[in-house]
């Protein structure tokens, strides 16, 4: 009981660390929860654009702007070069269209006046370019036949009304699943940071030479002491895990209570236990409290960046993903990603997740064995 009480005393003294990482997770979780509708039906992507019109408000310009409004998010941004340039750089806009002076007049006489644009060069911008091109091309074709401006615009609109039918086969609400995946991926960072630092700190306090000597000569059975320590560590880890699960229940609500949601929770439990054993190893290896904050930062940030907790895995370069295979976080995140895109839960589709779980358990066993070796070699003190 003494060990158990001391454990919580030290924890209580350093609760700030736990609070900081939990707040970080909360901020991330909430900013991620922006409302989006259920994505069971087709929704077209809309690039963000701005229009700067130096021409008069002619019928052609009006028609063009109306068309752009339908296919893009036209943002009202102050017409100031610096604001527009900043917006492009920070991807607040994907495309800016400058309609020059006398555009309509030149267009109607059959010339091909030039449109100036600013573009981010990403896929949204490429798509915006297609949208712009289509309208002008269509207008170009009819300009040869029709000389009246309003009639031309009406004709172009008429043709553009033809649409394709679209059917979406997936019944999975991929937007919602995406959110769950993002939350649990990010939680791996907070979990590692909290567990490695805290458990390391506590083991260190018990491992200080003077205290260790006192513990060894005490009447308390060594095995019982170790068991109490291990138990309190596991208890702390489980509380952290439960805290993050509760946060996810509050943020993501009923989706967490489906079978799929429960698998996410189970997966994070296995991961938590794996990280607890890792923290135990690190705590026994490192005998310097100051070094611990450095190590816990490097371990948590390193595994989060390399395994895709911050940047989605599909965006990581191949060689980084290969490196990530040696870290347990990779398997945890891989399971989350699989769950997020899986159409149906069957024995077959669950196979990769089961494999990942086995690998995480194997990691835990290796960490336990290693920390036993470390503890044994360090036992003798002069």
């Amino acid at each position, binding site marked *: 009981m003494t060990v158990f009480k001391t454990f919580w005393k030290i924890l209580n003294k350093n609760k700030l660390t736990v609070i900081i990482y939990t707040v970080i997770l909360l901020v991330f979780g909430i900013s991620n929860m922006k409302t989006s509708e259920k994505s069971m039906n087709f929704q077209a992507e809309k690039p963000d654009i701005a229009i700067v019109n130096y021409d008069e408000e002619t019928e052609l310009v009006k028609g063009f702007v109306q068309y752009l409004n339908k296919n893009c998010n036209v943002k009202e941004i102050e017409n100031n070069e610096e604001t527009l*340039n900043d917006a492009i750089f920070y991807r607040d806009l994907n495309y800016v269209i400058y309609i020059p002076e006398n555009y309509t007049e030149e267009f109607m006489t059959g010339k091909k006046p030039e449109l100036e644009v600013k573009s981010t060069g990403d896929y949204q911008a490429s798509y915006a370019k297609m949208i712009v091109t289509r309208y002008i091309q269509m207008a170009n074709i009819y300009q040869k036949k029709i000389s009246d401006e309003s009639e031309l615009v009406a004709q172009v609109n008429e043709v553009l009304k033809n649409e394709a039918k679209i059917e979406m086969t997936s019944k999975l609400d991929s937007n919602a699943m995406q959110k769950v995946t993002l939350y649990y991926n990010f939680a791996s960072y907070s979990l590692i940071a909290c567990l490695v630092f805290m458990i390391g700190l506590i083991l260190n306090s018990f491992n200080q030479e003077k205290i260790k000597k006192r513990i060894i000569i005490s009447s308390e059975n060594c095995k019982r002491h170790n068991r109490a320590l291990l138990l309190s560590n596991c208890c702390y880890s489980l509380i952290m895990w439960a805290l993050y699960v509760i946060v996810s229940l509050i943020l993501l609500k009923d989706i967490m209570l489906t079978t799929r949601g429960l698998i996410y929770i189970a997966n994070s439990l296995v991961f938590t236990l794996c990280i607890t054993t890792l923290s135990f190893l690190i705590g026994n290896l490192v005998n310097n409290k100051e070094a611990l904050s450095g190590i816990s930062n490097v371990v948590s940030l390193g595994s989060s960046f390399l395994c895709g907790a911050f940047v989605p895995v599909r*965006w990581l370069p191949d060689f980084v993903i290969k490196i990530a295979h040696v870290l347990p976080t990779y398997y945890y995140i891989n399971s989350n990603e699989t769950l997020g895109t899986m159409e149906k839960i069957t024995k077959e589709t669950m196979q990769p997740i089961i494999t990942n779980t086995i690998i995480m358990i194997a990691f835990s066993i290796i960490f336990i064995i290693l920390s036993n070796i470390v503890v044994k070699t360090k036992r003798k003190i002069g």
Partner: protein
Amino acid sequence: MIDMFFHNFKYILKTLFKNKMLIFWTFAFPIILGTLFHLAFSNIANNEKLDIIDIAIVKDEEFNKNIFFKMAFKELSDKKNEERLFHTQYVDEEKAKKLLEDGEIIGYLKLEGETPKITIISNGIDETVFKYVTEQVLQMSQTGIFEIEDINIKNISNKNLDYTMIEFYTLIAMAALYGGIFSIWVMNQIMPDLSAKGKRIAISPIKKGTIVLSSFLASYIVQLIGMALLFAYTILVIQVDYGVYSKLVVLLAAVGSLAGLSIGLAIGVLMKVSENSKTGILIGITMIGCYLAGMMGISMKNIVDKGAPIVNKVNPAAMITDGFYSLYYYETLDRYWFDVISLCIFSGVLILISFRNLRRKKYDSI
């Protein structure tokens, strides 16, 4: 006097370099973080380009009859075409469904009379483009014109558009402000109310100004060496692009480091808490500053710049980041000089306040 200046300078320099924790957080940590940024972000720019999209078309009688669709998709899937969009497989409907389920294609097209029908599995930009282009083909077929003329679009965007660079600029800002740890530590060494060594120094017959100045200078030198290492690493290994004005980059780094040291100085002098808490406060200020400057989400800086411009005008991390950004992205230098001058004023004010507080301080002999 000058002797004493160099004596103190030398020993502060030596002790700073021997303090492993200080060196880890100011020298090694930014380099480790930079490496992680590089590993995670190096592929983003490529991923944001529109890739060739895998689709299938149900090749039945309807499709064979429709010359427009046949020609258009042949053209759009042609390997020689520079504006190629699709990689198209012509299959029967069963096969197309199978391909879609296996994730080999993002969707397939089937003609139902005149109207095309697209089947997809989920939402996304590729699916949107597929639908859009199909509609374009349909609409062109109604005009009855095959040849489409190109239109005149001129791209006038600035060249340097890689926004992941902001991450590295905030990293430099973080390293610069972390330098404040040096001045906190140094002040702790020389202030009589903070350490035993400080008491010994205080009763020695040396002017306080000499001690403070030489210590400050020594920590500045260490800080600049750390910055030089970080720059060497980001330029040679990570290949961060700082634009073309290398001298101005050095100036900005030097002024930024000064701002970091002066924050540390102010915290060290004005706050009456333990050294650990002072370091904690400095790291907290740095992290909040870097967050607002876009370290944890690049768009943050733009949101703050637009929504509450005053916040980033007094945030040293944002000033440093913005300075590098304007060297990288803008051709004119007005914005850069504004940032450099703001940083100078910021540091000047903090140093002045700290020195006013240090002057004429006497300790009773209780």
